C-alpha cells in the first residue's frame, strides 16, 4: 500500500511530501525523501523489549516492571534531570513538563547544545523571521552562515531556497544569489555565488564589519577583517542591500563558536540594519525534527524555552546554571531520564561520566551511545512511523506527523503517561 503526504521525522525541515510504501508492519519503499529519510523509514534495528542493568549484566524485563522501575528511580531522586525531548512529539513533551513540575526536577531539551544561544539572543533583541513558504516564494538572496544544509538538512535547498522555484522566482537557480559563510569549504560552499571563508571564532567581527558597511561606515574598516578581504565584504553587503527579499539562515557554526549568543545577536542586528534598505529575515536551521516543538511546549507551559528548573516549586531559567551540561559537569543531578535524544554521543565526555554514575533511564526506540550509560531502557514506537503526534517545523509551523504502520510498541506518550500516573499518586 502506498501512503502519500507522509511527514519525515528526521530533521527540522519536516518534509511533508514523502510517499511511503508499506507491506504489513514494514516500510518497503520511500519516495521523495533524502538519504536520511530513506535510512530512517527503512531502518530495522529497534530494541525489542525493555532492558534493565543489574550491576554488569543486562536483562530483558516486561514493560510494567520497566515503568515501575523508572518511576521509582525518579521518585527516589533529590534532583532529577529530564533531558532530550526533541525526538518526540509535542504531546509527550507536555507530559514531561508536568512530570518535571511534580518531581521538582530540571527539564531541558537538546536546544541546550544546538540553538539555545539563538533563543537567548532572540530573548534580547527579537526575531525578524518568516516561514519557509515566504522564503521559497520571495527570497532572491539566501545567506547560509555557519550552516551546511547539504549534509544536515539535505532538502532545504531543493524545497525552499537554491533549487526551489517560487511564486516570484520562476527560475530559482538562476535568479537567487546564494552566499555561504563558513570556516571550511563545505559542499554547500561549493555551490555558493559568494563563499566567505571566515577565521574560526571570528564571526562576531565579520558581522560587525558587515553592519558597519550597511550603515555607511565601511571606511573605518581595515583591509581585511577576520581573514576576509574588505572588497568581498563590500560586494556581499551590496548583494544583500540590493535584494528584493533576503533570507539568512544560520547554524551551529554561529551558536557553538566563540561569542555564542552574542554572535546571533549581532546577526539579528545585521538583519535589522539590512531592513533599512530592503526586506531581510533571519532564521535558525533547527536540527532535530521537533526541537522547535520542545521550545514551544516548554514555553507555553512554563514561560521558558529550555533549561527549566522546578526545584523551587516554580519555573526558574538560567542558562549556564540550569542547563544540562552545566548540571552534569557539576555532578549535581542524582538521576536522569533521557527521552528522544542521545547525550552519550552528544555531550562532552566528562558529562557522560556523570550519566554513567547515576541511575540513567532512557526512552528510545534504538540502542545508542546512551544505552551503555543507562540502567534501564524502554523501547518505544517511532513518531512518524508507528506513532503519530504534533511537531513544529524549523520555522515554527506545526505539522501533524502520521503513523504509517502498526506495531506493538507503545508511543512515548503512553510510556510517559504511565510513569507520570505513578509519580502523581506518590507525590
Amino acid at each position: 500500500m502506498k501512503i502519500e503526504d507522509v511527514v519525515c521525522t528526521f530533521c527540522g525541515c519536516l518534509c511533508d511530501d514523502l510517499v511511503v510504501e508499506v507491506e504489513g508492519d514494514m516500510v518497503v519503499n520511500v519516495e521523495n525523501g533524502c538519504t536520511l529519510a530513506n535510512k530512517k523509514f527503512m531502518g530495522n534495528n529497534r530494541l525489542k523489549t525493555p532492558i534493565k542493568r543489574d550491576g554488569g549484566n543486562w536483562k530483558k524485563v516486561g514493560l510494567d516492571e520497566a515503568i515501575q522501575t523508572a518511576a521509582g528511580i525518579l521518585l527516589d531522586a533529590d534532583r532529577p534531570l529530564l533531558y532530550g525531548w526533541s525526538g518526540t512529539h509535542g504531546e509527550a513533551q507536555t507530559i514531561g513538563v508536568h512530570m518535571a513540575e511534580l518531581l521538582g526536577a530540571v527539564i531541558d531539551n537538546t536546544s541546550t547544545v544546538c540553538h539555545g544561544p539563538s533563543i537567548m539572543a532572540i530573548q534580547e533583541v527579537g526575531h525578524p523571521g518568516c516561514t519557509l513558504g515566504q522564503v521559497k516564494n520571495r527570497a532572491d538572496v539566501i545567506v547560509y552562515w555557519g550552516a551546511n544544509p547539504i549534509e544536515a538538512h539535505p532538502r532545504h535547498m531543493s524545497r525552499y531556497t537554491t533549487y526551489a522555484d517560487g511564486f516570484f522566482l520562476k527560475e530559482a537557480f538562476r535568479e537567487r544569489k546564494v552566499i555561504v559563510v563558513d570556516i571550511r569549504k563545505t559542499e554547500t560552499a561549493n555551490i555558493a555565488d559568494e563563499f566567505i571563508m571566515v577565521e574560526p571564532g571570528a564571526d562576531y567581527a565579520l558581522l560587525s564589519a558587515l553592519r558597519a558597511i550597511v550603515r555607511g561606515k565601511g571606511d573605518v574598516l581595515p583591509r581585511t577583517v577576520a581573514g576576509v578581504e574588505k572588497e568581498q565584504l563590500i560586494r556581499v553587503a551590496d548583494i544583500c542591500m540590493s535584494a528584493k527579499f533576503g533570507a539568512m539562515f544560520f547554524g551551529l557554526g554561529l551558536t557553538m563558536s566563540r561569542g555564542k549568543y552574542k554572535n546571533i545577536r549581532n546577526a539579528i542586528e545585521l538583519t535589522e540594519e539590512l531592513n533599512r534598505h530592503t526586506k531581510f529575515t533571519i532564521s535558525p536551521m533547527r536540527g532535530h525534527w521537533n526541537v522547535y516543538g520542545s521550545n514551544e511546549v516548554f514555553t507555553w507551559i512554563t514561560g521558558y524555552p529550555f533549561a527549566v528548573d522546578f526545584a523551587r516549586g516554580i519555573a526558574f531559567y538560567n542558562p549556564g546554571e540550569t542547563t544540562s551540561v552545566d548540571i552534569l559537569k557539576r555532578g549535581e543531578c542524582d538521576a536522569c531520564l533521557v527521552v528522544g535524544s542521545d547525550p552519550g554521543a552528544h555531550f562532552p565526555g566528562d558529562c557522560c561520566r556523570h550519566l554513567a554514575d547515576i541511575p540513567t533511564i532512557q526512552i528510545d526506540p534504538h540502542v545508542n551511545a546512551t544505552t551503555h550509560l543507562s540502567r534501564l531502557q524502554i523501547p518505544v514506537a517511532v513518531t512518524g512511523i508507528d506513532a503519530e503526534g504534533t511537531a513544529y517545523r524549523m520555522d515554527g509551523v506545526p505539522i501533524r506527523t502520521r503513523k504509517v504502520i502498526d506495531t506493538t510498541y507503545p508511543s512515548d506518550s503512553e510510556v510517559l503517561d504511565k510513569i507520570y500516573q505513578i509519580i502523581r499518586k506518590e507525590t
Partner: protein
Amino acid sequence: MRFLLNTGRTITQGSNVEHKNSEAYREEASTCRMNPVDMMELDIEERAPIVVRSAHGEIVMQAIPDAGQARGEVFVCLGPYANHIVSPETHCTGMPDFKATVVDIEPTTEGVWPVWKLMESVGGCRYED
C-alpha cells in the same frame, strides 16, 4: 602538532545515527578530516590511526585528507569520539565549545575503539544488540 578541532554534521553520520553500534557509524564518527599538507608534515597516511589529545583526554581516530580544510584545523563529525575530548565548560551559556577544541595530533599504532568501549571508559556497561 597543534590543531583546532571543529565538529559538525555529515550525511553519513546522519544516515547511521540510529545504528550507533554499527561499523559504519564507528568509521564515520571517528574519522578526522585534515588538510593534506598537514598530513604530509606529520607523515600520516590516508586512513592511518592518529591520537587526538586535548586538555580533557585523548582518543584514537583515523585521518583522511580534505582539501577544503584549512591548515591547522581538523574536522570530525559530531558524536562520541570528538565529544570525548571536548571540555564541559560553557562560559555560562549552557553550550560547550564544540567547534573550538585545541588538540595535539600525532600518528599512533593503536586501534579505534568501538562506541561501547568508549562508553565503558567513562563508567558505562556494554549492551549488545
